[in-house]
């Protein structure tokens, strides 16, 4: 009976083996497993793994505002510290808070720079990031194939993601520029979150508070960059009031935990021509913003 059961298990293993080999083959062919619902995030985590990024002195994070707003080479060459931009599309403060708890251990940052705008305070937490963050870092760095099975996404979905996703080209520090076509117009159609505040805004403020507290207790310096927004976002007095309240709220939370709050909302420096839309900067805009940030951080990042 023993040997029959063992033989049965062995045969089942043989039956399953071609399936496992199949997944290894599609992995090698570039049909990567879907880890989270964010294409950019998955792509970025693959880059982190492939470049063996371990210790990052200055860790940037945020949504598409941070992804496209920070010019990597300017930061890397002027601040003289190891740098990586973990920003990806759609991250909310709630998501960032969860991620930083994981990244603090894995990348040992001394400075965390959040480049953000009001859109990062408008949506609920994306639970799909837990599918990646809950996995032991050794496994996710050395055996990413596990994500084919951890939360199963069909091969049809994997193929669809590979061929039907937005073009995001990451530089070696995880940053990116908005891709433009031959006429200089951006190819990316952003889903804008222009309604502010939303029912999730308060919750995201709480998460900003949580992450600020977490970083402070870990002796990691938080630098909160308030990214510029286009003039028409605060065109009326009422809008201006909402934006001012939002700025003050962020400032008070960050500074209460010993963080640095830098606000670049300045319509004179950031003219409308530097924006793709209400809060995403063009490549030229990101250069202007990053130069300003670098100038201000020189005394802070040592």
């Amino acid at each position, binding site marked *: 009976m023993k040997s029959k059961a063992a033989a*049965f298990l062995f045969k089942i293993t043989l039956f399953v083996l071609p399936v496992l080999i199949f997944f290894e083959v599609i992995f090698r062919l570039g049909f990567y497993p879907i880890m989270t619902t964010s294409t950019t995030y998955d792509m970025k985590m693959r880059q982190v793994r492939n470049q063996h990024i371990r210790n990052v002195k200055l860790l940037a994070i945020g949504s598409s505002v941070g992804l496209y707003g920070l010019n990597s080479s300017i930061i890397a060459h002027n601040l003289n510290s190891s740098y990586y931009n973990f920003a990806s599309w759609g991250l909310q403060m709630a998501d960032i808070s969860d991620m930083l708890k994981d990244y603090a251990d894995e990348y040992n940052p001394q400075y965390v720079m959040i480049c953000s705008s009001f859109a990062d305070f408008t949506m609920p937490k994306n639970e799909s990031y837990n599918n990646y963050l809950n996995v032991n870092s050794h496994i996710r760095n050395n055996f990413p194939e596990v994500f084919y099975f951890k939360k199963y996404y069909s091969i049809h979905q994997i193929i669809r993601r590979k061929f039907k996703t937005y073009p995001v080209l990451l530089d070696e520090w995880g940053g990116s520029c908005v891709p433009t076509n031959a006429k200089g117009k951006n190819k990316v159609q952003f889903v804008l979150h222009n309604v502010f505040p939303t029912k999730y805004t308060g919750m995201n403020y709480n998460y900003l508070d949580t992450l600020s507290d977490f970083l402070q207790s870990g002796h990691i310096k938080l630098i909160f960059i308030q990214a510029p927004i286009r003039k028409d976002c605060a065109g009326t007095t009422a809008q201006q009031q909402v934006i001012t309240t939002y700025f003050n709220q962020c400032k008070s939370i960050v500074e209460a935990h010993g963080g640095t709050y830098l606000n670049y909302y300045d319509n004179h420096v950031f003219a409308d021509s530097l924006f793709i839309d209400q809060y995403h900067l063009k490549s030229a805009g990101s250069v202007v913003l990053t130069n300003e940030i670098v100038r201000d951080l020189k005394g802070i990042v040592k």
Partner: protein
Amino acid sequence: MVFNSIPFVVFFVLFFFIYWVILGKSVKAQNILILLGSYVFYAWWDWRFLFFLIGSSVLNYFLGIGIYKSNNERYRTFLLGIGLFQGLGSLVFFKYFNFFINILIGFFGTLNIKPDIHTFDILLPLGISFYTFRTISYLLDIKRGQVKPTTDCVVFLSYVSFFPSLISGPIDKAKTLVPQLENKRVFNYSKAADNMRQILWGLFKKIVIADNCAVFTADVFNHYQTLPASSLLLGAFLFTIQVYTDFSGYSDIAIGVASLIGFNITRNFNYPFFAQNIADFWRRWHISLTSWFTDYLFNPLAIYFRDYGNTGIIISILLNFIIIGIWHGANWTFILFGFLHGCMFIPLILRGKLNTKKRQSENTLIPSAGMLLNMAATFILVMFVFVIFRSDSVSQAFDYYHRLFSPTLFSKPPIAEKVNMIVAVLAIILMFVAEWLQRNREHPLQIDFIKPFALRAAIYYGLVFLILTFSATKMADFVYLKF
């Protein structure tokens, strides 16, 4: 952990290895492993209710022995009463408390009285409807003298919490499962291979058909007010298929898993969509539940009302099906679902054809026109009643029906996930063809008659390919987990 998840695969491979390879010689050790495994399986969902499951099992174990040993009929009835009170009481509390409170509030509301009573946030212990029915049938069978109670506590606790059927059935009676737990199990290689095929078929039904249907039906039932009638009709059709493939898929996996560790548990579905009438349908649909109710509710009712002829049978059937409806959940929709199914029996009762089993010719390749007509009529009736089952309220169900019969019935339904829909429809056709051709076997993948191994392997890998490639964008929970 659900059957179609990696944690379960890991759990079961380990379990299987320890069960057969290490503990193969000791029934007692195997039973202890079953018990521990079942508790781990249950606690994986929510450990808090594990203590409730254990407490309820231990109480019923002693009640069973007490009922058997006592010669005093009144004392035996008293002990049975305690068991019924505990089982039905916990069901009423966890499942129906808020429902009754809402009825009470509504009743007082009609009298313009605002009573100071409130509903509570009550978490439903997983599988309570299933394991409670096991303990109740155990006590009733002992009281009736149909089974002897087991004196082995591990055996009884394992019977109540037997993990392959703990969460969503099949609901096995003690006389089926307890003797198997007490006797030595033998590993049968060819049977195990067949069990794997049944599990594969169950996964195909659940992942390729049910989950893909669920994407569409969720959309239809959530937005039925804005959709054309053709979408509503398609939604009703696909929901009927979804419930069947989801639940029968689950049952196939449960039966396969149980059989891999040497247990034969009750078959739950017998190709219900080939039923010739509604009575035939219920002989083939959720068989373990239907037979439970037949034994412990319908038969006693039919005996009680035996002097009233057909009227007595109709009353018994209606009560039986209303209770079956309530078993599904605390909502008027389920009560109406049961009531309507009961009503559909009335023509059969009046024509004296309730127990007439129409034989399907076993070897015909194509069903006769009459058979096909009967199957279609039964399916359509069942499909329309499933709209009530799926709706959040009775008024929503009626609104759905109202919108279903409109000129847009002949328009093209909008479909968002086209690939998934095409796959689902093709897979449904494949399933029906396979089930029809294999309708005399326990499951359609019993294809030993195909001699070339390569062809059989191609069929197995073909199904694996479909499962891996076309699972839905969102994996849905098993429908019957919430009951």
